[in-house]
């Protein structure tokens, strides 16, 4: 004989469900994909309704209304996801560097570099895979070590141009290492302590070039947001403000779930510029930036992935590198 009733017995037999954060992420990804596709469907559906109503309305007036009322805000899904990530980012611990400590960030990167020779007019594009380690001290000074993992020509045409140009030294050798030191204030981007956490003021600061000189445009602001998040030394309030800044950008769009260049699943958001698309991929559970990807844009459409930065690790260490 048991003291359980039927409900309790059923709960016991069917088992207590385990918490499954990965399943939640997969489900969230599928929903975000649907949400991201919704503005297009919504607009199409509403356009069909408008077409029926248009017979009763003067054509010119209808066109005006369709333009101003029918098309929903395409960046709403991206903005909502960025704000959710911003809330998550606020929960993450801020790096607190004691004197003598460094914030070490390791990245894998794919770099595409053009080499033009003015005398011959020859242009050779090279693609390199590199591993970059960056040490940042509390005062903003730092070190950087760049190791070439592999390199190749971007296309058979580039290889041919290189051969015809007499095989100039443009291809970085695998294993080649470059070590650099940065004095205090040498790289403005490292010092985020002065950046405002009010999103409007922060957006203004990023647009003004006060943080780093860049071409104007929302895609450049978005890239800057990614760069600052990538270095990992932004305090929690600043990280949240950076997500809010990104959410305010008119051209921000949600892709949905993707695999980053290292095969990790994340949520992708992009902004298109005149010639390139900047896409940031975030861990949907922690809001940690996983990757920054760059696609060329030609004739209004993005081409194949051109370069990327994948964040491997950010950690506090108590000594600088030996170089």
């Amino acid at each position, binding site marked *: 004989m048991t*003291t*359980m009733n039927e409900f309790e017995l059923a709960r016991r*037999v069917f088992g207590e469900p385990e918490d499954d954060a990965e399943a939640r992420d997969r*489900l*969230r990804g599928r*929903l975000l994909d649907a949400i991201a596709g919704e503005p297009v469907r*919504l607009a199409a559906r509403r356009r069909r309704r408008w077409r029926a109503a248009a017979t009763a309305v003067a054509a010119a007036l209808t066109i005006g209304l369709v333009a101003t009322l029918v098309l929903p*805000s395409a960046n709403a899904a991206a903005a909502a996801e960025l704000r959710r990530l911003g809330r998550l980012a606020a929960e993450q611990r801020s790096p607190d560097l004691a004197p003598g400590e460094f914030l070490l960030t390791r990245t894998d990167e794919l770099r595409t570099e053009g080499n033009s020779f003015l005398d011959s007019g020859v242009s050779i594009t090279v693609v390199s895979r590199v591993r970059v380690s960056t040490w940042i001290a509390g005062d903003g000074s730092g070190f950087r070590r760049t190791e070439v993992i592999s390199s190749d020509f971007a296309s058979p045409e580039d290889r041919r141009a290189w051969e015809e140009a007499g095989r100039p030294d443009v291809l970085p050798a695998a294993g080649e290492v470059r070590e650099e030191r940065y004095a205090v204030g040498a790289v403005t981007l490292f010092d985020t302590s002065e950046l405002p956490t009010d999103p409007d003021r922060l957006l203004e600061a990023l647009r003004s070039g006060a943080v780093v000189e860049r071409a104007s445009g929302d895609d450049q602001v978005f890239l800057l947001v990614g760069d600052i998040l990538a270095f990992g030394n932004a305090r929690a309030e600043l990280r949240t403000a950076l997500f809010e800044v990104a959410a305010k950008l008119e051209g921000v769009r949600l892709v949905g779930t993707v695999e980053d260049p290292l095969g990790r699943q994340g949520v992708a958001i992009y902004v298109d510029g005149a010639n390139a698309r900047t896409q940031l991929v975030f861990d949907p559970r922690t809001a940690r930036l996983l990757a920054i990807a760059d696609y060329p844009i030609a004739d209004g459409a993005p081409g194949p992935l051109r370069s990327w930065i994948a964040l491997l690790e950010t950690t506090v260490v108590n000594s600088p590198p030996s170089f």
Partner: protein
Amino acid sequence: MGTDAEIFRRSVGDPSAFADIFDRYVDAVLAYARRRLGAVEGEEIAARVFLIAFEKRAKFDPGAESAKPWLLGIASNLIRRKVRDERERLASLAKVPLPIPAEPVDDPARMDAERLRPALVEALTNLPVGEREAFLLVALGDLTYEETARALRVPIGTVRSRIHRARAHLREHIPDLEGIPVGTDKTDDG
């Protein structure tokens, strides 16, 4: 963030607002679907529940207090069409022992559940669909009778009688089962 009804209303014009509904109920929907169909099929059902709810968000009852009954109702409808998967899930529940707790505990209820498991599964398998759905929404979905009525879109009296019959059937086929007398369970809020 607002009530569920407010979020649904907002999500009609701003689809991204629907993510808040997902955040509120993903655990409940996933847990229910997985208990019913297992990890893989359950996750697929949970995904479809949210996609369907998103598509039909304009039809959410603005007077409803919580979206949970509506979402579990969608899950229930989808599961009902997965007869073979559910039969397989029940068959595996009958065969595979309950998971052993990480720490050894003196839990007589667990031992009872282990002993009564095959009889419960067989009894559930033989229940009429309507009765099984109502019973499992209460037992595994943690819905009240009133919420179950909303989930299944039937009057609350129908839910009461279905669950009454389900419980009577289970007791008849699980002779050792004794506990709170049928009809006086605290879950019956009507």
